[in-house]
């Protein structure tokens, strides 16, 4: 089955912000949800001893308040505004006499230790730098409460963030958080009434692992996209398919590295948007094919494509590895997100030999862009032939047109589904 038929309204990320974060702050890795959830008790139940030296903070003024009120054995990391430490760092700093936490009434102090709400979430997500509640939306997307999974968060930008773990038998949200609440004074797990979460936005981490499928992602066994919005995290390293090396849309761009092939079956026209995100040192490009032929490339891009599909049939998204001039294959993990506002064929017929298109009530898929309009581009030319390698003026115009199309689409989606505004 196809990767992860995404459960929810997908707000595409602000790619610039994400890429910028990668470039400046290290590599983001996909993380299994189980790892996120299993890491929480380590912070909630971390045993440590508060000494008298931890109830003072040399660098703080009289307004400083520790998150611990008494010397002695403690459980769980204390709340520390601006704090973002691992358990080892915390133990080390407590041993060095750092103040035990800091209630958020002053500036971030360098002589106190613990985690604040977003620092805690950053640690659980294993994000390479500290997120804030205002920057957290750059690495997450909005979801619906009915489809929240453990490891997702409730975020209130500029205020607080809380990680969702599930529901208790009353239906209260079971959460883990670092909070100044008197019930916690730091990291703890507890059930919260949903009304307390009014105004918060449920969000899922981009890189939280999703289900993997049995499909190989080859032409013979493509990954079936059964529903949109769609989201899938995979790795081209070791991928079985080496079918496509150069695509008609960018015939000089070497994509001879391994690729993963996805298929979806369209019943009616609509706008397809797809993006692929990868980390520093990895270069996966996104391609849309009208058939399993590199000459049938409808659009390609380093990051994002937008194509208006008007004819029913089978279409293929290919996440392919770019190969540099030195022959280096930039394989690695990527996150594919895609959305389509038309209708899909409910029960597609499998291709008999992996190379021909399935039929939809006798309708044959079109070839080479007939019936297709590239959002801002002509024929089967790609929306943008790559930020690094395209002819800049043409690419810029094409990208601008595609981006405008995406923006309109996002706006329409946001207004129709009540999504929050996408900020940059």
């Amino acid at each position: 089955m196809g990767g992860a038929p995404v459960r929810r309204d997908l707000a595409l990320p602000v790619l610039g912000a994400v890429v910028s974060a990668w470039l400046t702050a290290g590599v983001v890795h996909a993380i299994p949800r189980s790892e996120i959830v299993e890491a929480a008790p380590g912070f909630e139940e971390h045993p440590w001893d508060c000494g008298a030296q931890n109830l003072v903070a040399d660098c703080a003024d009289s307004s400083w308040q520790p998150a611990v009120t008494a010397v002695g054995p403690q459980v769980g990391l204390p709340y520390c505004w601006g704090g973002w430490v691992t358990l080892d760092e915390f133990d080390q700093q407590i041993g060095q006499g750092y103040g035990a936490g800091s209630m958020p009434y002053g500036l971030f102090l360098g002589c106190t230790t613990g985690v604040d709400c977003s620092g805690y979430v950053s640690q659980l997500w294993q994000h390479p730098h500290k997120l804030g509640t205002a920057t957290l939306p750059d690495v997450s997307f909005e979801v619906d409460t009915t489809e929240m999974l453990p490891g997702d968060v409730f975020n209130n930008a500029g205020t607080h963030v809380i990680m969702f773990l599930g529901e208790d038998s009353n239906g209260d949200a079971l959460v883990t958080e670092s909070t100044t609440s008197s019930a916690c004074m730091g990291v703890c797990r507890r059930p919260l009434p949903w009304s307390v979460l009014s105004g918060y936005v449920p969000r899922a981490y981009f890189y939280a692992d999703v289900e993997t499928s049995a499909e190989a992602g080859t032409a013979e066994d493509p990954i079936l996209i059964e529903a949109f919005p769609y989201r899938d995290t995979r790795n081209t390293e070791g991928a079985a398919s080496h079918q496509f090396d150069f695509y008609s849309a960018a015939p000089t761009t070497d994509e001879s590295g391994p690729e993963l092939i996805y298929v979806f079956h369209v019943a009616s026209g609509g706008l397809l948007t797809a993006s692929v995100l990868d980390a520093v040192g990895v270069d996966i490009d996104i391609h849309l094919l009208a058939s399993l032929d590199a000459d049938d490339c409808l659009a390609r891009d380093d990051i994002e494509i937008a194509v208006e599909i008007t004819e029913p049939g089978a279409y293929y998204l290919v996440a392919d590895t770019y190969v540099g001039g030195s022959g280096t294959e930039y394989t690695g993990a990527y996150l594919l997100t895609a959305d389509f506002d038309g209708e899909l064929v409910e029960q597609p017929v499998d291709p008999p030999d992996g190379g021909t298109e399935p039929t939809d009530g006798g309708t044959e898929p079109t070839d080479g862009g007939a019936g297709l309009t590239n959002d801002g581009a002509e024929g089967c030319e790609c929306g943008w032939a790559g930020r690094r390698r395209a002819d800049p003026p043409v690419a810029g115009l094409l990208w601008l047109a595609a981006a405008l199309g995406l923006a309109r689409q996002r706006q329409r989606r946001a207004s129709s589904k009540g999504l929050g505004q996408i900020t940059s």
Partner: protein
Amino acid sequence: MDDPMRFKIPGYVAALIIGLGTQCTSAADAVSAESIVHVTAVQPTHRLVKTAQVELAYGDTVGTVGFEPAGRDRQAVGPSAFDVDGQGHYVVADPVRHRLVRLQQRSGVSVATPLGALPLPFSDLAVDRDGWIYLTDLRSRTLTTVAPSTTSRAPLPGKGLSTRFVRQGDDVVLSAGASSRLLRRGVLTQLASNVSVEKCNAEAGLITMAPGGKQIQVELGGPLASIRLIGVNRAGDIFVIVERFVQRGRLAVNRHVLVLAATGALKAQLQVLGKPAIHPVREFVLGPRGALHRMVPGTQGVAFLRWEVRP
């Protein structure tokens, strides 16, 4: 959002369907399988009438309750739990000033009587009929008992996360998942049957109640977010607070307090307006005389509201 109970089934008669199968299970350990009743909640037959409102100023001086405005992360902190003692006075946990206080009004003047230090962190508070105070701390898994002259600490029973104080008649019960313990003068006694409510089906708004010895399914209307037990009065009426989703993107949730008869029939309901600036651990309390109390910490003071069930 429309009140779902007003359009589910018209009329004033609860539809009782005996013996319906259930997809829900109850945590109650004293449920007999042969007594499953399905109830569709309909129009209430009683009202919750507001009978008192007391407002007290914030501060740390005599007669006030401590409060700190929101810090840099905008998490305001203030009085976070309360209960009503046998004299009708409010006992308030004031974590900002690390103290327990008894609040009352004398001739229109707020008077706060210190009751000792409040151990931090703490999770919940209750006062029994004899004036003994109980505090739970889910983080250290302890139950602290504050008698007039002494304080003792003991491990909390149960798994902790679902541990709550619930008023049952004149008594305080420590509900810990499937088990309940009666609290009187600092002594915990295991109760034979547990009063519980659980969410069954969110979209249908189906809940399971186990008012001791039998299981009742009640259809309240959805989409249901949660249901929590506030307490049970002397007559056996069950006070619950129900949350329903209004909006699921940027979350919006409405709340109603429902009073359900032991049969599951809807007796009274009250829409809870507004979201407190501070999230109290214990916002609603059923007092020892059966009145419903709510603590509303605001930016200028803390208000205590009281309602009573009237035909």
